[in-house]
C-alpha cells in the first residue's frame, strides 16, 4: 500500500535537503514506492549536475582525476616520511618534505578561470590541462639541526605527519569511491 503521506513529506524534504532525504529513503525501505520516488529525485539531481559538467566541457571523470593526483602525492609523501623515520639514526641526514597542495589548488583555480577543462576548446584547438603540470615537489630541509651530529629528524613531527597522511589517504579513497558510485548510479538510471 502506498503511504502517500510519507511520499509527500519525503518530497518536501528532497527539495530542502537532498542528502538528508536519501537517508530517509534507506530507513523506510519497505515502502517500495517511496523508495523509488526518492531515488528518482536523487537521480535527477545527479544527472543534472553531470549533464551540466559535460555541457561545460567537463569530463565525468574530472573529479576522479583531481583525486588521483592527490592520491599519488599522498603516497609519495608516505614514502618520504618513511624514509625520514628510517634515517632517524643516520648522522648528518637532513629530512625531506613534499609540497603539492599549493600547486593543485593553483591548477584548479586556473581551470575555473579558463571556464572549461576540456582538452579541446571551442575553436577545436587542444589546450593543455593545468592538472598535468601538477608534479609533487620533494624538498630537503637543510637549514635546521636537531642533534649535534647534524641530523634534523624530529620523530614526533614525523610520526604525527605519518598519522595525518594516512587519514588524508583514507579520506581520498573514500571520496573517489563515492565519485564512482555517482557515475554508476547515472549509468543504472537511478536504480540500485
Amino acid at each position: 500500500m502506498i503511504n502517500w503521506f510519507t511520499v509527500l513529506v519525503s518530497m518536501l524534504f528532497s527539495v530542502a535537503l537532498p542528502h538528508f532525504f536519501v537517508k530517509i529513503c534507506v530507513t523506510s525501505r519497505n515502502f517500495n514506492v517511496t523508495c523509488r520516488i526518492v531515488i528518482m529525485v536523487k537521480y535527477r539531481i545527479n544527472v543534472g549536475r553531470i549533464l551540466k559538467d559535460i555541457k561545460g566541457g567537463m569530463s565525468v571523470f574530472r573529479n576522479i582525476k583531481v583525486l588521483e593526483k592527490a592520491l599519488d602525492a599522498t603516497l609519495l609523501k608516505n614514502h618520504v616520511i618513511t624514509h625520514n623515520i628510517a634515517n632517524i639514526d643516520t648522522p648528518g641526514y637532513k629530512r625531506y618534505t613534499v609540497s603539492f597542495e599549493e600547486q593543485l589548488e593553483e591548477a584548479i583555480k586556473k581551470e575555473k578561470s579558463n571556464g572549461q577543462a576540456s582538452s579541446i576548446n571551442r575553436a577545436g584547438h587542444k589546450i593543455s590541462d593545468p592538472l598535468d603540470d601538477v608534479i609533487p615537489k620533494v624538498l630537503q630541509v637543510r637549514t635546521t639541526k636537531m642533534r649535534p651530529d647534524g641530523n634534523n629528524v624530529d620523530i614526533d613531527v614525523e610520526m604525527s605527519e605519518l598519522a595525518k597522511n594516512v587519514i588524508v589517504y583514507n579520506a581520498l579513497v573514500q571520496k573517489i569511491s563515492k565519485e564512482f558510485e555517482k557515475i554508476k548510479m547515472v549509468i543504472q538510471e537511478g536504480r540500485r
Partner: protein
Amino acid sequence: MNFFKAFDISASALTVQRLRMDVIAQNIANAYTTRTENGHPYRRRLVIVQEDSQDKKFSQYLSESSAKFVGSGTKAVRIIEDPSPLKRVYDPSHPDADGDGYVLLPNVDTDKEMVDLISATRSYEANIAAINAAKSMAMKALEISR
C-alpha cells in the same frame, strides 16, 4: 612509483636497528674480555649507518624538484672498533696483568650500551609504526570503488 616502496624503506631500517642491537649485545657480552683472537683486549664495536639512495646523484634529483624520489631507506655500511683508550685497572691477581699489576679491560661502558640499546629499540618501534601505516593505506586502496 612502487606502492610497496614504503615497506622496503622501513624494512631496511628494521635490519639496521636489529644489527645495532646485535652489536650492542656483543659489546655487553664482551665487557670483560681481555683476550681476543689477535691477543688484545676486546674493543667496543660501533655500527656506521648511512642513508641509502639508489642513485648516486640523489641531491641532483632533488634540486630539480622532480617527483622521482630515489631514497630507499638506510643501510649499515661498516662495523668499526671504537678507538677510545682501553680501561687500565689495577688487579695484580689477574692472569693478564702486566708487570706493574695493571690489566687492560675493554673500553665498553655497560651503561652507555644499555642507553644505545633503548635508542635502537625505540627506533625499531617507530619503523614498525611506519610499516603499519603503509599497510593500512594499502588495505584502504583496495576499497576503491567497492
